[in-house]
């Protein structure tokens, strides 16, 4: 929404205006603390009760040369007094800590949007570094916006005149001056951030107090001067009653895995190797040792998955977490788990590729890799998380499938939801699925590859159990006995059996729900992190009077039982994907239905409007027919 220029005025004070929705982007150099600033604004807004959605956008380099375009790090947050689904298409407010941050982000800013710049950084040298030929603060290039010039560095140093910190440390506080200003501008309390600073820097109180002082200076600057004519507020969202927290996708995934461990009674073992954007799952689980979690930073991706397989053999919940390049390395290990039929969860936090690609950017282009990127017939269940909070439920469901069917399961997430945050209505522990597992104990008649009639799962017989000594391995197995067997008929039987076992998961997963008309002209079908943009676009299209339905796949292998029927009920099916049409390829192959792909592979998520415009075009075309 556009921020109003006028509002209710009390004499001598800035006008006040209540807005329902605002998008703010903090942008600066990699070292300017923009992620931290954005996160603080987000957490404070969460505690006020706003609905929110975030989009961090940072470079792959830890510190690209200061002041350059590749070094710009940004954090976008949208807060609202109503249910929202995306971090917003275009910012209403841009905080630009230097010329490069302005240049890199200006094109996204809404017309008449607010720009707050740190004028201290607009030096001839920095302007040149950012590729500006003339100073945009002095020419007319920013006339379409509401520009606020603030000497952030100077003001920060002045606020800390009496501090004993060195100049470099003082200057590092300047992001909190900007944060204090934004807190004032959007009527947020300072206390949650003050509390956070004092805990975070409890061993260096001088740093905490310097930041508090600077943040207050930013606030007071706005309150005392008439820098801003209007001050805004965003009221709490009318969320469903319950207790909430703000959560990132990777955090929800880590907590979900611990919850699955507790609900299954299986100790959690994570084998991992550092890789963007999956490392935070390792970092977070490494702090949960008090839940019996073992984390293993292996020598490579292969060792990480193999150790997880070993842990599963021993009766742990084996998990390995990585991103596309690491999943490629794990392929042989995953196939071993297929063959030895042990439970294993592999999390693929997708990023831009191929090869090293765009490590810090998002993409959904590993779908075909996880479906087919292994030698021979290698059926593996696949499930995709659709939002930061949904990563929690997805972790539990992945573990359920893995243990109930004795199979590796691949869980797909991506950089967008891994690093993005949203409010999460905290579930009651007792309402979480019961995942209890029974290890096989009875030696009488035991065969390692005998099977449950319903699920076709083989028994989980862990070492240490007397009388169940047996050998497993990657060589083809004779059904039931598990002995090595090269007979043609047996191999054909086993290939089909492994496929059938995974296919039978369809018997206990929910049907695909269609939201909106159950049949008609247009269905927008998504998977994974496109949920927010699709939901926002479809809701808007309906509000605009268009007839459109939507559905979102959680289970991708196997597909829900009614998927073919759902596709048949619609004249046209649109699948927006951050790839060149990978789900569409699967759907066409399986259901012989024409699927229309909407591809975007820019390393950033769809905006609501992009999908909305596509819906408008398609419904327009339908009407003309």
């Amino acid at each position, binding site marked *: 929404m556009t921020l109003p220029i006028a509002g209710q005025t009390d004499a001598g004070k800035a006008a006040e205006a209540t807005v329902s929705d605002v998008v703010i982007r903090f942008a600066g150099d990699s070292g300017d603390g923009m992620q931290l600033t954005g996160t603080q604004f987000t957490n404070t807004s969460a505690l006020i009760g706003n609905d929110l959605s975030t989009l961090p956008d940072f470079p792959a380099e830890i510190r690209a040369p200061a002041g350059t375009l590749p070094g710009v790090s940004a954090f976008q947050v949208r807060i609202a007094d109503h249910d929202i689904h995306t971090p917003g298409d275009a910012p209403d407010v841009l905080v630009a800590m230097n010329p490069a941050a302005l240049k890199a982000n200006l094109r996204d800013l809404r017309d008449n949007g607010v720009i707050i710049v740190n004028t201290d950084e607009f030096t001839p040298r920095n302007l040149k570094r950012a590729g500006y030929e003339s100073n945009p603060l002095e020419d007319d290039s920013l006339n379409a916006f509401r520009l606020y010039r603030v000497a952030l560095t100077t003001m920060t140093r002045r606020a800390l005149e009496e501090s004993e910190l060195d100049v470099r440390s003082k200057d590092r506080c300047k992001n909190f001056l900007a944060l204090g200003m934004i807190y004032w501008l959007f009527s947020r309390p300072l206390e949650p951030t003050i509390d956070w600073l004092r805990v975070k820097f409890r061993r260096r109180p001088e740093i905490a107090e310097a930041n508090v002082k600077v943040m207050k200076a930013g606030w007071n600057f706005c309150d005392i001067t008439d820098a801003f004519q209007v001050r805004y507020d965003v009221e*709490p969202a009318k969320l469903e009653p319950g*207790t*909430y927290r703000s959560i990132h996708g990777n955090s929800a995934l880590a907590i979900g895995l611990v919850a699955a461990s507790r609900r299954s009674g299986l100790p959690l073992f994570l084998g991992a190797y550092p890789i963007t954007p999956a490392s935070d799952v390792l970092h977070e689980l490494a702090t949960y040792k*008090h*839940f019996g979690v073992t984390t*293993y930073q292996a020598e490579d991706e292969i060792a990480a998955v193999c150790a997880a397989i070993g*842990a599963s053999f*021993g009766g742990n919940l084996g998990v390995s977490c990585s991103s596309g390049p690491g999943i490629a390395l794990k392929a042989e*290990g995953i196939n071993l788990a297929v063959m*030895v039929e042990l439970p294993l969860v592999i999390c693929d936090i997708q990023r831009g590729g191929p090869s090293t690609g765009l490590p810090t950017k998002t993409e959904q282009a590993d779908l075909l890799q996880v479906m087919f990127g292994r030698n021979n017939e290698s059926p593996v269940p696949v499930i995709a998380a659709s939002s930061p909070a949904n990563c929690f439920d997805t972790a539990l469901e992945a573990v359920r499938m893995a243990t109930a069917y004795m199979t590796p399961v691949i869980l797909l997430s991506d950089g967008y939801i891994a690093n993005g945050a949203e409010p999460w209505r905290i579930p009651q522990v007792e309402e979480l699925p019961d995942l209890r597992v029974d290890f096989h104990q009875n030696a009488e008649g035991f065969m390692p590859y005998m099977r449950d009639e319903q699920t076709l799962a083989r028994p989980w017989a862990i070492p240490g159990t007397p009388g169940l000594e047996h050998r497993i391995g990657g060589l083809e197995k004779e059904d039931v006995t598990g002995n090595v067997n090269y007979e043609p008929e047996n191999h054909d039987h086993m290939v089909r059996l492994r496929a059938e076992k995974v296919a039978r998961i369809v018997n206990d997963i929910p049907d695909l729900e269609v939201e909106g008309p159950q049949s008609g002209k247009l269905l927008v079908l998504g998977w994974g992190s496109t949920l927010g943009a699709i939901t926002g676009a479809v809701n808007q299209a309906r509000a605009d009077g268009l007839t459109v339905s939507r559905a979102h796949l959680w289970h991708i292998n196997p597909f829900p039982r009614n998927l073919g029927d759902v596709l048949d009920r619609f004249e046209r099916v649109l699948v927006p994907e951050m790839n060149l049409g990978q789900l569409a390829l699967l759907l066409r192959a399986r259901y012989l239905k024409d699927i229309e792909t909407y591809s975007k592979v820019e390393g950033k998520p769809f905006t609501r409007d992009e999908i909305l415009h596509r819906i408008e075009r398609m419904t327009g075309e339908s009407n003309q027919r």
Partner: protein
Amino acid sequence: MNTTEAPPLTRKDFQSDQEVRWCPGCGDYAILSAVQQVFPELGIPREKFVIVSGIGCSSRFPYYMNTYGFHSIHGRAPAVATGIKMTRPDLDVWVVTGDGDALSIGGNHLIHTLRRNVNLKILLFNNRVYGLTKGQYSPTSELGKRTKSTPHGSVDFPFNPLNIAIGAGATFVARSVDIFMPHLKAVLKRAAAHKGSAFVEVMQNCNIYNDKAFAALTDKAGRQQNGLYLEHGKPLVFGDNKDKGLRFTGTDFEVIELGNGKSEDDCLVWDEEHANPSLAFQMASISTGDGLGDFPVPLGVLRAVDAPTYDAGVIDQIDELTTARPQTLDQLIHGTDTWTVDAGGNVHRGAN
């Protein structure tokens, strides 16, 4: 409860019902027999043994042992075994691997397992050739070796497995020979008793693709002439009538003839517990292992030192933190900052 004691385990208890499918005459038969003789003597219940292997002739080993077994993928056995040992410290985990499996495709896992000192017993069957893929040179094949993939002779310099292990920081390093049954059994028992990664190179004959690879050591004459049987605290003597010894000059080993004024007192007394690994490294370096050089082939325990194991360290941390930081799943899920929306839509900080 059953109060009668189970009968002691025998060799037979460790023989599986699977037909052994190594080539007739393969050295692996002898090693299998040695392991099946040693395991019953370790006082460990059969169900507590796990044997993990990779790919190659040697890696078929688990199928023939009536224990828990895992025939994994090429080179990755140490990684699989590490996952087992970290989570199941009650199990006795053995890795069986070969020169290609451990030193080529799986080199990374081997060195990292050794540096971490995971409590695993690693048996590397070194026959200096790829057998299962039918005769290519391996990372331990000698320079100039003619194989199917090196028809004009190998120009690769080989690894010495002992030096890899010592260089990676292994806390137990030993060597034996497939057909030296009493020696092999004694070495296996020492390995079994070691707390930490125990690395044992077993020199093994491949009578199909690399026959008589160690003949200069293993034939009747060679056993005494070319074998240096290391014993902790004993001087380094060898030869038919213990008539030769090894002296350490301060920088190098040298062979001396005993007699004529030279005695055992001039030989270095072997210290497998020496904290600095450089002497063991130098000992490993005196021979390439085939018994063809000027020096004898060191056999037995080169290094055996105490060090904390990785798996124990991991488990200790978990145990300590589980006691020190009791937290419920509900508390974990809630985290530190929550807000509550009540039925009237009012928002307040904190949980209900």
